[in-house]
């Protein structure tokens, strides 16, 4: 499957319709066709109720279309059993959530290793890979910390490392900066940029224009239908972001100062979240 899949799109939706029965048929998605090429960076935008979450659930193999075709990594998701779909999700999809969704009782390394547990990766291999991945996201010195001992940005880095654990076909991010302050959000987007540069396929769902502009193209959804696909001519990158940040703050806040503020803010954010 994987060998023939090389030429195919990472994800392909063909006339996908998703309806929910809520005392009447509600269309969450209607006749949506979309291809996510391998190695691409796509953003999905739209107001709430536009079908963003439904699209995310379908692409993430958490749900199945009511009608239409869906392939992930060349495999027909619609025809799959629940078991096969879970296996595909664990192996080929990496989730990054707005609220991080780390296991609170597990350490950073254990969280990163978790997806490998369910794919039958050996214990030794798991811990080696988890350490590598945490090193990659800049948390090599935080492997033994639990989520409540980490700042918001650090938590999201752990979540990204976890998403990469099984070397998935697609990295699926749902408002990845939604619970972070601007500076930390920028750092996370810089991390996504690096992953994109290294060949990962990324799909980001967001309602923020400046986050979406990091992608190559933006898919606009409205009322469950594809409104338009916009190609981003001038992609935002960490460099342009930094320049922009310097402009806004005038004299250009020092990096160290910015980081302290970011950590403090994200700490208070996480405190609220836990309460």
């Amino acid at each position, binding site marked *: 499957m994987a060998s023939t899949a090389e030429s195919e799109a990472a994800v392909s939706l063909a006339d996908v319709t998703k309806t929910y029965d809520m005392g009447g048929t509600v269309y969450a998605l209607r006749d949506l066709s979309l291809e996510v090429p391998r190695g691409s960076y796509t953003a999905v935008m739209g107001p709430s109720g536009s079908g963003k979450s439904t699209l995310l659930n379908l692409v993430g193999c958490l749900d199945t279309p009511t009608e239409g075709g869906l392939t992930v990594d060349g495999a027909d998701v619609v025809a799959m059993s629940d078991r096969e779909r879970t296996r595909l*999700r664990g192996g080929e999809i990496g989730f990054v959530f707005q609220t991080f*969704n780390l296991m609170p009782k597990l350490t950073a390394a254990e969280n990163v290793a978790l997806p490998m547990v369910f794919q039958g990766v050996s214990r030794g291999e798991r811990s080696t890979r988890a350490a590598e991945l945490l090193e990659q996201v800049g948390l090599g010195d935080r492997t033994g910390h639990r989520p409540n001992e980490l700042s918001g940005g650090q938590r999201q880095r752990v979540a990204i490392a976890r998403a990469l654990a099984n070397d998935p076909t697609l990295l699926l991010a749902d408002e990845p900066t939604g619970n972070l302050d601007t500076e930390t959000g920028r750092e996370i987007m810089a991390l996504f940029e690096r992953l994109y540069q290294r060949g990962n396929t990324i799909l980001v769902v967001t309602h923020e224009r400046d986050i979406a502009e990091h992608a190559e193209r933006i898919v606009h959804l409205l009322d469950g239908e594809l409104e338009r696909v916009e190609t981003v001519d001038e992609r935002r990158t960490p460099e342009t972001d930094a320049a922009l940040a310097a402009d806004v703050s005038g004299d250009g806040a020092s990096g160290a100062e910015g980081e302290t503020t970011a950590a403090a803010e994200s700490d208070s954010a996480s405190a609220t979240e836990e309460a």
Partner: protein
Amino acid sequence: MEFVQSLRMAWSAIRSHKLRSALTTLGVVIGIAAVITFVTLGASLQAAVIGDVGGDQPPVVNVWAGPEDAVGSGQGGPGFGAQPVLTQHDVDRLERLNGVDSVDPYGRVATTALEYGGDRVASDGIVAVTPAYLEDEPLGEGRYFESGTREAVLNPRAAEQFDTNVTVGSELTITLANGSTRAVTVVGILEESTSTGPFEGFSTSPRVYVPVDTFYTDTVTTPTTGEQARVYRTISVTATGHGALPDVQDRVRSYLEEDSDAAQLVPSGYVFAVRTNEELVAQIQSLLDQLTGFVTGIALLSLLVGSIGIANIMLVSVTERTREIGIMKAVGAQRRDVLQLFLVEASIIGAIGAVLGTLLGIAGGWAATSLLDFPLEFPLEWFGIAVAVGMLVGVLAGLYPAWNASRLDPIESLRYE
């Protein structure tokens, strides 16, 4: 997911709620401990009551006239409610039956106290028997008493109950229930204190044996001969061998029911019990089994409560960890992975509870038997059963919550606050 990993994750979940897990485990501990304590107590009680008597029995038929319902249902134990209907004449006639080796009347003389060397101890009765009755009991020292004498044989427990130990040649003073006293000379001390027959009960207790013809005074006018003669409540008929025992049992019964003095003396509502030693032991055993079964049943109820505790806490735990379950499913956990995780968690609680409960139960059994002065007897097979049941309880109690957890929808779970 490999089993070791699920153990590790389940253990970490248990440890993250130490108090809650400990209390849940305590429920199982109490249940298992109660079961172990009661079965130990039951086995020890059995050992105390039946003791060595459970082994090879002499070919003896025990005879008494007891209340119809008690004899019929086998309740009350050997000699329960026995009436003085078996005359000396009956004893002589029974002795002449085919296959009978000897007939030994067994009488009890009511007393209030025994006195030796100025030390007076309470005693509710002494045993009046023929010399033949004691013949098979090995002597520790001295000799057996002779008929018609004021001699006595003591068992070691009886000899040791005074300030100074009774020895052969000692003089004992016996205070009878009517207040009069009798002096006896101790001529022998038995080797062991175990019961010499079913009518004594089966326990190890102090006993004084005296000649029946000297001390036993209950008499009646014999219906067939019109003579005044001794009358007994209980007698033991010894057959010539085990082969002859069933026939002897039948002959004794038909003699008693047809032309004995006893048949004429027996009050209405009373019937003859003609039981071999084996039957009596089996009867007591079944009584004790019933008793043990009953208290163990109550103990099992507490184990049931413990298992409900596990189920309850696992249900709470599943609800509480809905979001975690959603995360696990999102990163590729199969339904059976989630099922396994929660089942393992419940089983760990059950297993720990079973092991601790067994230890506590052993301690409890030991404490109870030493308090009641029973010989400690551990029913080892029950320990195995208890541990197995504890784990089974964990699995069963965890089954429904785990199944619930495995069926959670990942999308809903991730949204759960």
